[in-house]
Protein backbone atom coordinates (compact mmCIF):
# COMPACT_ATOMS: atom_id res chain seq x y z
CA UNK A 1 0.00 0.00 0.00
CA UNK A 2 1.57 3.24 -1.16
CA UNK A 3 1.40 6.28 1.07
CA UNK A 4 -1.64 8.06 -0.39
CA UNK A 5 -1.56 11.87 -0.33
CA UNK A 6 -5.04 11.85 1.23
CA UNK A 7 -6.79 10.18 4.14
CA UNK A 8 -9.55 7.58 3.80
CA UNK A 9 -12.04 10.17 5.01
CA UNK A 10 -10.79 12.62 2.39
CA UNK A 11 -11.40 9.97 -0.25
CA UNK A 12 -14.91 9.41 1.12
CA UNK A 13 -15.57 13.16 1.01
CA UNK A 14 -14.45 13.38 -2.61
CA UNK A 15 -16.49 10.31 -3.54
CA UNK A 16 -19.50 11.93 -1.87
CA UNK A 17 -18.89 15.20 -3.70
CA UNK A 18 -19.00 13.29 -7.00
CA UNK A 19 -22.60 12.33 -6.22
CA UNK A 20 -23.69 15.98 -6.55
CA UNK A 21 -24.38 17.30 -10.05
CA UNK A 22 -24.56 20.96 -10.92
CA UNK A 23 -27.76 22.81 -9.98
CA UNK A 24 -28.88 19.96 -7.78
CA UNK A 25 -30.65 20.61 -4.50
CA UNK A 26 -29.24 18.33 -1.84
CA UNK A 27 -29.96 17.66 1.82
CA UNK A 28 -26.69 17.69 3.70
CA UNK A 29 -26.34 16.44 7.22
CA UNK A 30 -23.45 17.27 9.49
CA UNK A 31 -19.70 16.77 9.09
CA UNK A 32 -18.56 14.76 6.10
CA UNK A 33 -21.41 15.64 3.68
CA UNK A 34 -21.06 19.36 4.44
CA UNK A 35 -17.43 19.22 3.41
CA UNK A 36 -18.36 17.16 0.36
CA UNK A 37 -20.92 19.80 -0.59
CA UNK A 38 -18.18 22.40 -0.37
CA UNK A 39 -15.92 20.36 -2.63
CA UNK A 40 -18.79 19.89 -5.10
CA UNK A 41 -19.50 23.63 -5.28
CA UNK A 42 -15.81 24.24 -6.07
CA UNK A 43 -15.62 21.54 -8.74
CA UNK A 44 -18.50 20.11 -10.74
CA UNK A 45 -21.48 21.78 -9.06
CA UNK A 46 -21.00 25.55 -8.59
CA UNK A 47 -24.77 26.14 -8.54
CA UNK A 48 -25.74 23.32 -6.21
CA UNK A 49 -27.84 24.19 -3.15
CA UNK A 50 -27.34 22.61 0.24
CA UNK A 51 -30.30 22.23 2.61
CA UNK A 52 -30.23 21.70 6.38
CA UNK A 53 -33.21 20.24 8.18
CA UNK A 54 -33.00 22.79 11.01
CA UNK A 55 -34.30 25.31 8.46
CA UNK A 56 -31.41 26.57 6.33
CA UNK A 57 -30.22 26.61 2.74
CA UNK A 58 -26.72 27.55 1.65
CA UNK A 59 -24.96 28.14 -1.67
CA UNK A 60 -21.56 27.45 -0.11
CA UNK A 61 -20.60 25.77 3.14
CA UNK A 62 -19.86 27.95 6.14
CA UNK A 63 -16.34 29.27 6.55
CA UNK A 64 -15.04 27.09 9.35
CA UNK A 65 -15.74 23.84 11.15
CA UNK A 66 -19.26 23.39 12.48
CA UNK A 67 -20.30 21.57 15.62
CA UNK A 68 -23.97 21.61 14.58
CA UNK A 69 -26.10 22.80 11.67
CA UNK A 70 -27.36 25.66 13.87
CA UNK A 71 -23.96 27.15 14.68
CA UNK A 72 -23.89 30.92 14.09
CA UNK A 73 -21.30 30.29 11.36
CA UNK A 74 -23.90 28.32 9.43
CA UNK A 75 -26.53 31.08 9.79
CA UNK A 76 -24.19 33.82 8.53
CA UNK A 77 -24.47 34.17 4.78
CA UNK A 78 -27.16 31.50 4.43
CA UNK A 79 -29.27 31.70 1.27
CA UNK A 80 -32.47 31.01 3.23
CA UNK A 81 -33.26 30.83 6.94
CA UNK A 82 -36.68 29.42 7.59
CA UNK A 83 -38.50 26.66 9.43
CA UNK A 84 -38.02 22.93 9.39
CA UNK A 85 -41.35 22.49 7.60
CA UNK A 86 -40.54 24.83 4.75
CA UNK A 87 -37.09 23.36 4.17
CA UNK A 88 -37.91 19.69 4.70
CA UNK A 89 -41.20 20.21 2.82
CA UNK A 90 -39.14 20.39 -0.36
CA UNK A 91 -38.64 16.62 0.03
CA UNK A 92 -42.27 15.52 -0.43
CA UNK A 93 -42.61 18.53 -2.72
CA UNK A 94 -40.30 16.63 -5.07
CA UNK A 95 -37.64 19.35 -5.20
CA UNK A 96 -34.71 17.50 -3.63
CA UNK A 97 -32.32 15.62 -5.88
CA UNK A 98 -30.24 13.88 -3.26
CA UNK A 99 -29.93 13.48 0.49
CA UNK A 100 -27.02 12.26 2.60
CA UNK A 101 -27.58 10.21 5.73
CA UNK A 102 -25.66 7.98 8.12
CA UNK A 103 -26.79 5.21 10.43
CA UNK A 104 -25.81 2.38 12.73
CA UNK A 105 -26.93 -0.52 10.51
CA UNK A 106 -27.66 -1.01 6.83
CA UNK A 107 -28.96 -4.09 5.06
CA UNK A 108 -28.57 -5.54 1.59
CA UNK A 109 -31.46 -3.48 0.21
CA UNK A 110 -30.08 -0.28 1.70
CA UNK A 111 -32.51 0.09 4.57
CA UNK A 112 -30.90 2.03 7.40
CA UNK A 113 -31.40 1.73 11.16
CA UNK A 114 -30.62 4.60 13.50
CA UNK A 115 -33.31 3.92 16.13
CA UNK A 116 -33.15 0.63 18.00
CA UNK A 117 -30.78 -2.35 18.12
CA UNK A 118 -32.90 -5.38 18.94
CA UNK A 119 -36.68 -5.42 19.30
CA UNK A 120 -37.98 -1.86 19.51
CA UNK A 121 -40.36 -2.95 22.27
CA UNK A 122 -37.38 -3.94 24.46
CA UNK A 123 -34.27 -2.64 22.74
CA UNK A 124 -30.75 -3.74 23.53
CA UNK A 125 -29.45 -0.33 22.49
CA UNK A 126 -31.47 2.86 22.11
CA UNK A 127 -29.96 4.92 19.32
CA UNK A 128 -30.83 8.61 18.92
CA UNK A 129 -33.51 8.03 16.26
CA UNK A 130 -34.45 9.27 12.83
CA UNK A 131 -34.06 12.99 13.05
CA UNK A 132 -34.76 13.89 9.44
CA UNK A 133 -33.23 10.74 8.00
CA UNK A 134 -36.49 8.85 7.43
CA UNK A 135 -37.96 11.78 5.51
CA UNK A 136 -34.81 12.20 3.42
CA UNK A 137 -34.70 8.47 2.67
CA UNK A 138 -38.37 8.51 1.78
CA UNK A 139 -38.50 11.54 -0.45
CA UNK A 140 -35.14 12.64 -1.82
CA UNK A 141 -34.89 11.56 -5.45
CA UNK A 142 -31.95 9.44 -4.30
CA UNK A 143 -30.22 8.93 -1.01
CA UNK A 144 -26.56 8.48 -0.35
CA UNK A 145 -25.62 6.58 2.79
CA UNK A 146 -22.24 7.23 4.41
CA UNK A 147 -21.07 4.67 6.97
CA UNK A 148 -18.02 2.87 8.22
CA UNK A 149 -17.85 -0.57 6.70
CA UNK A 150 -18.06 -3.13 9.50
CA UNK A 151 -19.58 -6.59 9.32
CA UNK A 152 -21.95 -6.06 12.26
CA UNK A 153 -23.25 -2.90 10.65
CA UNK A 154 -23.69 -4.26 7.11
CA UNK A 155 -26.30 -6.87 7.89
CA UNK A 156 -28.70 -9.16 6.06
CA UNK A 157 -31.67 -7.46 7.67
CA UNK A 158 -31.71 -4.41 9.97
CA UNK A 159 -33.63 -4.85 13.21
CA UNK A 160 -35.60 -1.62 12.61
CA UNK A 161 -36.03 0.28 9.36
CA UNK A 162 -35.65 3.92 10.31
CA UNK A 163 -34.90 5.09 6.77
CA UNK A 164 -36.26 2.99 3.89
CA UNK A 165 -33.93 1.99 1.10
CA UNK A 166 -35.32 -0.68 -1.18
CA UNK A 167 -37.37 -2.25 1.67
CA UNK A 168 -37.68 -5.94 0.67
CA UNK A 169 -36.28 -5.27 -2.79
CA UNK A 170 -37.91 -5.21 -6.22
CA UNK A 171 -40.98 -2.99 -6.32
CA UNK A 172 -41.64 -3.17 -2.59
CA UNK A 173 -40.63 0.45 -2.13
CA UNK A 174 -43.15 1.78 -4.60
CA UNK A 175 -45.77 -0.65 -3.29
CA UNK A 176 -45.28 0.90 0.16
CA UNK A 177 -46.37 4.19 -1.40
CA UNK A 178 -43.05 5.95 -1.93
CA UNK A 179 -43.41 7.44 -5.40
CA UNK A 180 -39.72 7.95 -6.10
CA UNK A 181 -36.27 7.71 -4.55
CA UNK A 182 -34.18 4.96 -3.08
CA UNK A 183 -30.48 4.34 -2.64
CA UNK A 184 -28.14 6.08 -5.07
CA UNK A 185 -24.93 4.98 -3.38
CA UNK A 186 -23.48 3.71 -0.13
CA UNK A 187 -20.09 5.27 0.49
CA UNK A 188 -17.93 3.57 3.11
CA UNK A 189 -14.35 3.67 4.29
CA UNK A 190 -13.65 0.63 2.09
CA UNK A 191 -15.88 0.84 -0.95
CA UNK A 192 -18.87 2.20 -2.80
CA UNK A 193 -22.00 0.03 -3.12
CA UNK A 194 -24.90 0.66 -5.49
CA UNK A 195 -28.23 -1.06 -6.08
CA UNK A 196 -28.39 -3.28 -9.16
CA UNK A 197 -30.71 -5.63 -10.96
CA UNK A 198 -34.46 -6.13 -10.64
CA UNK A 199 -34.19 -6.68 -6.89
CA UNK A 200 -32.12 -3.50 -6.42
CA UNK A 201 -29.82 -5.33 -4.06
CA UNK A 202 -26.66 -3.46 -3.04
CA UNK A 203 -23.68 -4.56 -5.14
CA UNK A 204 -20.01 -3.63 -4.95
CA UNK A 205 -19.47 -0.78 -7.40
CA UNK A 206 -15.89 0.09 -6.49
CA UNK A 207 -13.31 -0.57 -3.77
CA UNK A 208 -11.02 2.11 -2.47
CA UNK A 209 -7.30 2.19 -3.18
CA UNK A 210 -5.58 0.01 -0.59
CA UNK A 211 -8.57 -2.30 -0.29
CA UNK A 212 -9.45 -5.49 -2.18
CA UNK A 213 -12.71 -7.06 -3.23
CA UNK A 214 -12.09 -9.86 -0.73
CA UNK A 215 -11.51 -7.38 2.07
CA UNK A 216 -14.77 -5.54 1.33
CA UNK A 217 -16.73 -8.80 1.12
CA UNK A 218 -15.22 -9.97 4.42
CA UNK A 219 -16.56 -6.86 6.11
CA UNK A 220 -20.07 -7.19 4.68
CA UNK A 221 -22.70 -9.22 6.49
CA UNK A 222 -24.34 -10.59 3.37
CA UNK A 223 -23.03 -12.34 0.29
CA UNK A 224 -21.93 -9.18 -1.55
CA UNK A 225 -22.15 -9.46 -5.32
CA UNK A 226 -20.14 -7.38 -7.79
CA UNK A 227 -21.41 -4.88 -10.32
CA UNK A 228 -20.43 -5.89 -13.87
CA UNK A 229 -18.05 -2.92 -14.09
CA UNK A 230 -16.73 -3.20 -10.54
CA UNK A 231 -13.32 -1.49 -10.35
CA UNK A 232 -11.13 0.42 -7.95
CA UNK A 233 -12.58 3.76 -6.81
CA UNK A 234 -10.99 6.45 -9.01
CA UNK A 235 -8.25 8.33 -7.23
CA UNK A 236 -9.00 11.94 -6.28
CA UNK A 237 -7.89 14.39 -8.92
CA UNK A 238 -5.54 17.23 -8.16
CA UNK A 239 -8.45 19.65 -8.55
CA UNK A 240 -10.56 17.69 -6.11
CA UNK A 241 -7.79 17.57 -3.54
CA UNK A 242 -7.18 21.27 -3.95
CA UNK A 243 -10.88 22.03 -3.50
CA UNK A 244 -10.98 19.83 -0.42
CA UNK A 245 -8.02 21.65 1.10
CA UNK A 246 -9.75 24.97 0.43
CA UNK A 247 -12.94 23.81 2.17
CA UNK A 248 -11.25 21.94 5.01
CA UNK A 249 -8.92 24.79 5.88
CA UNK A 250 -8.48 23.56 9.45
CA UNK A 251 -7.31 20.15 8.20
CA UNK A 252 -10.05 18.42 10.20
CA UNK A 253 -10.24 15.51 7.75
CA UNK A 254 -6.51 14.92 7.04
Amino acid at each position, binding site marked *: MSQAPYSTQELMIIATAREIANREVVFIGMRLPITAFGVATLTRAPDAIGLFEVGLARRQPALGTLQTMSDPLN*QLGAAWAS*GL*LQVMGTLPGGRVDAGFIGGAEIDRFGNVNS*SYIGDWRKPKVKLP*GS*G*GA*ADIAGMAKRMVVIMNHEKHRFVERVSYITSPGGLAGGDSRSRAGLPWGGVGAVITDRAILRPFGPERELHLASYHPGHSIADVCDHTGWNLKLLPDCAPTPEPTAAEIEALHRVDRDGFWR
Partner: protein
Amino acid sequence: MSTKLTTLAEAVRTLVRDGDQVVLGAGLEQAIPFAAAHEIIRQGKRNLTSVAPISDMVGDMLIGAGCIAKVVGAWMGNVSAGLGHNYRRAVEQGLPHPIAIEDYSNFTLALALWAGAYGAPYVPVRTILGSDIMASNPKILKAEDPYTKTPIALIPPLRPDVAFLSVQRAAANGDSHVWGNLGVMQEAGMAAERVILLADQIVASEVIASDPNRVIVPGFRVAAVVHTPCGQHPSPLAGHWKRDGDFFTDYHRLSREPESFQAWLKEWVFEPGSPEGYLAKLGRRVEALRIREQALSVPANYGAS
Protein backbone atom coordinates in the same frame (compact mmCIF):
# COMPACT_ATOMS: atom_id res chain seq x y z
CA MET B 1 -50.67 47.65 27.97
CA SER B 2 -50.20 44.92 30.55
CA THR B 3 -46.71 43.49 30.96
CA LYS B 4 -45.96 39.80 30.61
CA LEU B 5 -42.54 40.09 32.24
CA THR B 6 -41.91 37.69 35.09
CA THR B 7 -39.15 35.57 36.60
CA LEU B 8 -38.27 32.14 35.34
CA ALA B 9 -39.06 30.57 38.72
CA GLU B 10 -42.49 32.18 38.72
CA ALA B 11 -43.20 31.21 35.11
CA VAL B 12 -42.27 27.57 35.71
CA ARG B 13 -44.18 27.48 39.01
CA THR B 14 -47.40 28.88 37.59
CA LEU B 15 -47.37 27.67 34.00
CA VAL B 16 -45.84 24.17 34.09
CA ARG B 17 -47.77 21.39 35.78
CA ASP B 18 -46.79 17.81 36.50
CA GLY B 19 -47.85 15.69 33.55
CA ASP B 20 -47.65 18.50 31.01
CA GLN B 21 -46.47 18.11 27.43
CA VAL B 22 -43.53 20.53 27.20
CA VAL B 23 -41.57 21.80 24.18
CA LEU B 24 -37.98 22.80 24.91
CA GLY B 25 -36.12 22.26 21.65
CA ALA B 26 -38.16 24.02 18.98
CA GLY B 27 -35.12 25.74 17.49
CA LEU B 28 -33.47 22.34 17.03
CA GLU B 29 -29.76 22.94 17.52
CA GLN B 30 -29.91 26.64 18.34
CA ALA B 31 -31.95 28.59 20.88
CA ILE B 32 -32.50 25.66 23.23
CA PRO B 33 -33.98 27.10 26.44
CA PHE B 34 -31.63 25.30 28.83
CA ALA B 35 -32.37 27.75 31.65
CA ALA B 36 -35.97 26.56 31.63
CA ALA B 37 -34.88 22.91 31.86
CA HIS B 38 -32.72 23.77 34.86
CA GLU B 39 -35.64 25.45 36.60
CA ILE B 40 -37.95 22.51 35.82
CA ILE B 41 -35.40 20.19 37.43
CA ARG B 42 -35.01 22.45 40.45
CA GLN B 43 -38.77 22.62 40.98
CA GLY B 44 -38.99 18.83 40.69
CA LYS B 45 -41.68 18.71 38.00
CA ARG B 46 -42.67 15.12 37.25
CA ASN B 47 -44.22 12.97 34.51
CA LEU B 48 -43.60 15.52 31.80
CA THR B 49 -43.76 14.60 28.14
CA SER B 50 -40.92 16.08 26.11
CA VAL B 51 -42.04 17.18 22.64
CA ALA B 52 -39.36 18.14 20.10
CA PRO B 53 -38.00 16.91 16.78
CA ILE B 54 -34.45 16.94 18.08
CA SER B 55 -33.50 17.08 21.74
CA ASP B 56 -29.92 17.95 22.26
CA MET B 57 -28.72 17.27 25.82
CA VAL B 58 -31.64 19.22 27.32
CA GLY B 59 -33.87 16.16 27.02
CA ASP B 60 -31.22 13.78 28.30
CA MET B 61 -30.73 15.92 31.38
CA LEU B 62 -34.45 16.05 32.17
CA ILE B 63 -34.67 12.28 31.83
CA GLY B 64 -31.74 11.74 34.14
CA ALA B 65 -33.28 14.11 36.68
CA GLY B 66 -36.46 12.04 36.67
CA CYS B 67 -38.77 14.69 35.21
CA ILE B 68 -39.78 12.86 32.04
CA ALA B 69 -42.30 10.07 31.58
CA LYS B 70 -42.50 10.15 27.80
CA VAL B 71 -40.49 11.34 24.82
CA VAL B 72 -42.36 12.48 21.72
CA GLY B 73 -39.69 13.11 19.15
CA ALA B 74 -37.47 12.13 16.28
CA TRP B 75 -33.98 12.27 17.78
CA MET B 76 -32.50 12.47 21.25
CA GLY B 77 -28.84 12.45 22.13
CA ASN B 78 -25.92 14.81 22.29
CA VAL B 79 -25.60 16.37 18.87
CA SER B 80 -21.88 17.00 18.85
CA ALA B 81 -20.78 14.35 21.36
CA GLY B 82 -22.79 11.18 20.73
CA LEU B 83 -25.53 9.14 22.34
CA GLY B 84 -27.55 10.35 25.32
CA HIS B 85 -26.52 8.28 28.31
CA ASN B 86 -29.55 9.08 30.47
CA TYR B 87 -31.86 8.39 27.54
CA ARG B 88 -30.20 5.01 27.00
CA ARG B 89 -30.34 4.11 30.69
CA ALA B 90 -34.04 4.98 30.90
CA VAL B 91 -35.00 3.01 27.79
CA GLU B 92 -32.63 0.08 28.14
CA GLN B 93 -32.60 -0.35 31.95
CA GLY B 94 -35.55 1.67 33.25
CA LEU B 95 -33.25 4.01 35.21
CA PRO B 96 -34.07 6.28 36.97
CA HIS B 97 -37.45 5.01 35.77
CA PRO B 98 -38.84 3.67 32.50
CA ILE B 99 -39.97 6.13 29.85
CA ALA B 100 -42.29 5.73 26.90
CA ILE B 101 -41.25 6.74 23.39
CA GLU B 102 -43.50 8.03 20.63
CA ASP B 103 -41.41 7.87 17.45
CA TYR B 104 -41.57 10.44 14.67
CA SER B 105 -39.30 11.71 11.97
CA ASN B 106 -38.40 15.41 12.05
CA PHE B 107 -40.85 16.28 9.29
CA THR B 108 -43.77 14.30 10.70
CA LEU B 109 -43.26 15.76 14.17
CA ALA B 110 -43.27 19.22 12.64
CA LEU B 111 -46.50 18.33 10.82
CA ALA B 112 -48.07 17.15 14.08
CA LEU B 113 -47.31 20.53 15.65
CA TRP B 114 -48.52 22.29 12.49
CA ALA B 115 -51.80 20.41 12.77
CA GLY B 116 -52.05 21.35 16.43
CA ALA B 117 -51.27 24.97 15.67
CA TYR B 118 -53.81 25.39 12.91
CA GLY B 119 -56.55 23.03 14.03
CA ALA B 120 -56.11 20.40 11.31
CA PRO B 121 -57.68 17.11 12.40
CA TYR B 122 -54.54 15.38 11.12
CA VAL B 123 -52.05 15.72 8.25
CA PRO B 124 -51.59 13.03 5.61
CA VAL B 125 -48.00 12.42 4.54
CA ARG B 126 -45.90 10.05 2.48
CA THR B 127 -42.35 10.69 3.74
CA ILE B 128 -42.34 7.88 6.33
CA LEU B 129 -44.10 5.18 4.33
CA GLY B 130 -42.02 2.02 4.62
CA SER B 131 -40.33 3.18 7.83
CA ASP B 132 -40.84 1.19 11.02
CA ILE B 133 -41.81 4.49 12.64
CA MET B 134 -45.22 3.53 11.24
CA ALA B 135 -45.05 0.39 13.42
CA SER B 136 -43.57 1.72 16.64
CA ASN B 137 -45.85 4.78 16.82
CA PRO B 138 -49.43 3.51 17.04
CA LYS B 139 -50.85 7.04 16.72
CA ILE B 140 -49.73 7.19 13.09
CA LEU B 141 -52.42 5.48 11.03
CA LYS B 142 -52.07 3.84 7.65
CA ALA B 143 -54.74 4.95 5.21
CA GLU B 144 -55.48 5.35 1.52
CA ASP B 145 -55.44 8.69 -0.29
CA PRO B 146 -59.02 9.05 -1.58
CA TYR B 147 -57.78 11.04 -4.57
CA THR B 148 -55.01 8.79 -5.88
CA LYS B 149 -55.89 5.50 -4.09
CA THR B 150 -52.27 5.18 -2.93
CA PRO B 151 -51.00 4.50 0.61
CA ILE B 152 -50.58 7.42 3.01
CA ALA B 153 -49.73 7.89 6.67
CA LEU B 154 -51.87 10.07 8.93
CA ILE B 155 -50.21 12.24 11.58
CA PRO B 156 -52.55 13.41 14.36
CA PRO B 157 -52.12 16.85 15.95
CA LEU B 158 -49.94 17.67 18.93
CA ARG B 159 -51.07 20.51 21.20
CA PRO B 160 -48.40 20.83 23.88
CA ASP B 161 -49.33 22.39 27.18
CA VAL B 162 -46.24 24.57 27.32
CA ALA B 163 -43.63 25.75 24.83
CA PHE B 164 -40.46 27.48 25.98
CA LEU B 165 -38.91 29.50 23.16
CA SER B 166 -35.53 31.21 23.33
CA VAL B 167 -35.49 34.43 21.32
CA GLN B 168 -32.94 37.15 20.68
CA ARG B 169 -35.20 39.97 21.86
CA ALA B 170 -38.67 40.48 23.25
CA ALA B 171 -40.83 43.32 24.51
CA ALA B 172 -42.83 43.24 27.73
CA ASN B 173 -46.04 42.90 25.70
CA GLY B 174 -44.93 39.47 24.44
CA ASP B 175 -43.95 40.46 20.91
CA SER B 176 -40.49 39.23 19.94
CA HIS B 177 -37.87 38.78 17.24
CA VAL B 178 -36.04 35.56 16.55
CA TRP B 179 -33.75 34.77 13.63
CA GLY B 180 -31.45 32.18 12.20
CA ASN B 181 -32.89 28.73 11.50
CA LEU B 182 -36.36 28.58 13.01
CA GLY B 183 -36.92 24.84 13.37
CA VAL B 184 -40.48 24.33 14.63
CA MET B 185 -40.64 27.47 16.76
CA GLN B 186 -43.63 28.89 14.93
CA GLU B 187 -45.60 25.66 14.93
CA ALA B 188 -44.81 24.95 18.59
CA GLY B 189 -45.63 28.50 19.61
CA MET B 190 -48.93 28.54 17.76
CA ALA B 191 -49.89 25.05 18.98
CA ALA B 192 -49.01 25.30 22.67
CA GLU B 193 -51.54 26.37 25.26
CA ARG B 194 -48.95 28.46 27.08
CA VAL B 195 -45.88 30.02 25.50
CA ILE B 196 -43.00 31.21 27.67
CA LEU B 197 -40.32 33.34 26.02
CA LEU B 198 -36.74 33.27 27.28
CA ALA B 199 -35.46 36.55 25.91
CA ASP B 200 -31.76 37.23 25.58
CA GLN B 201 -32.62 40.94 25.56
CA ILE B 202 -35.68 42.90 26.65
CA VAL B 203 -36.32 45.81 24.30
CA ALA B 204 -38.89 48.55 23.82
CA SER B 205 -42.00 47.45 21.95
CA GLU B 206 -41.04 49.92 19.20
CA VAL B 207 -37.99 47.80 18.36
CA ILE B 208 -40.18 44.78 17.71
CA ALA B 209 -42.84 46.80 15.89
CA SER B 210 -40.15 48.20 13.59
CA ASP B 211 -40.02 44.81 11.88
CA PRO B 212 -43.28 42.86 12.21
CA ASN B 213 -42.09 40.25 9.68
CA ARG B 214 -39.44 39.10 12.14
CA VAL B 215 -42.14 38.18 14.66
CA ILE B 216 -42.59 34.41 14.48
CA VAL B 217 -45.01 33.87 17.36
CA PRO B 218 -47.14 36.94 18.06
CA GLY B 219 -47.40 38.36 21.56
CA PHE B 220 -51.05 37.41 21.94
CA ARG B 221 -49.96 33.76 22.04
CA VAL B 222 -47.38 34.46 24.76
CA ALA B 223 -48.17 33.88 28.43
CA ALA B 224 -44.90 35.08 29.96
CA VAL B 225 -41.66 36.81 29.02
CA VAL B 226 -38.53 36.10 31.06
CA HIS B 227 -35.27 38.00 30.70
CA THR B 228 -32.55 35.32 30.68
CA PRO B 229 -29.33 36.62 29.11
CA CYS B 230 -27.54 33.67 27.53
CA GLY B 231 -30.35 31.46 28.86
CA GLN B 232 -29.81 29.12 25.92
CA HIS B 233 -26.23 28.26 27.05
CA PRO B 234 -24.53 25.99 25.99
CA SER B 235 -26.50 26.02 22.70
CA PRO B 236 -25.89 28.87 20.27
CA LEU B 237 -28.14 31.81 19.37
CA ALA B 238 -27.70 33.39 15.94
CA GLY B 239 -25.80 36.65 16.09
CA HIS B 240 -25.69 36.62 19.90
CA TRP B 241 -23.93 33.55 21.33
CA LYS B 242 -21.60 30.89 20.04
CA ARG B 243 -22.01 27.25 20.97
CA ASP B 244 -20.09 26.03 24.01
CA GLY B 245 -18.88 22.74 22.54
CA ASP B 246 -16.75 21.81 25.56
CA PHE B 247 -19.79 21.99 27.78
CA PHE B 248 -21.54 19.33 25.66
CA THR B 249 -18.42 17.16 25.68
CA ASP B 250 -18.03 17.48 29.45
CA TYR B 251 -21.67 16.63 29.98
CA HIS B 252 -21.29 13.60 27.74
CA ARG B 253 -18.38 12.34 29.80
CA LEU B 254 -19.95 13.09 33.17
CA SER B 255 -23.39 11.71 32.31
CA ARG B 256 -21.88 8.33 31.43
CA GLU B 257 -22.45 7.12 35.00
CA PRO B 258 -25.47 7.97 37.19
CA GLU B 259 -23.25 9.11 40.05
CA SER B 260 -21.20 11.55 38.04
CA PHE B 261 -24.40 12.77 36.38
CA GLN B 262 -25.86 13.54 39.81
CA ALA B 263 -22.71 15.45 40.64
CA TRP B 264 -23.07 17.35 37.37
CA LEU B 265 -26.69 18.18 38.23
CA LYS B 266 -25.68 19.41 41.65
CA GLU B 267 -22.89 21.55 40.26
CA TRP B 268 -24.69 23.04 37.25
CA VAL B 269 -28.37 23.03 38.21
CA PHE B 270 -29.02 22.86 41.94
CA GLU B 271 -26.14 24.86 43.35
CA PRO B 272 -26.42 27.80 40.91
CA GLY B 273 -30.10 27.96 41.94
CA SER B 274 -31.22 30.44 39.28
CA PRO B 275 -30.34 31.72 35.79
CA GLU B 276 -28.32 34.45 37.47
CA GLY B 277 -26.43 31.95 39.61
CA TYR B 278 -25.72 29.84 36.53
CA LEU B 279 -24.35 32.84 34.64
CA ALA B 280 -22.21 33.76 37.64
CA LYS B 281 -20.81 30.25 37.78
CA LEU B 282 -19.99 30.36 34.05
CA GLY B 283 -18.10 33.52 34.82
CA ARG B 284 -15.63 34.66 32.19
CA ARG B 285 -16.43 31.60 30.08
CA VAL B 286 -19.58 33.35 28.92
CA GLU B 287 -17.63 36.32 27.58
CA ALA B 288 -15.70 34.03 25.27
CA LEU B 289 -18.99 32.86 23.80
CA ARG B 290 -20.39 36.32 23.19
CA ILE B 291 -20.51 37.19 19.50
CA ARG B 292 -18.82 40.51 18.81
CA GLU B 293 -18.77 40.43 15.04
CA GLN B 294 -21.31 42.81 13.50
CA ALA B 295 -22.96 41.44 10.37
CA LEU B 296 -26.15 43.46 10.35
CA SER B 297 -29.15 42.80 8.13
CA VAL B 298 -29.76 45.48 5.52
CA PRO B 299 -32.91 47.17 6.87
CA ALA B 300 -36.35 46.97 5.32
CA ASN B 301 -38.38 50.15 5.09
CA TYR B 302 -41.92 50.07 6.47
CA GLY B 303 -42.56 53.74 5.79
CA ALA B 304 -46.05 54.43 4.48
CA SER B 305 -46.17 58.02 3.24
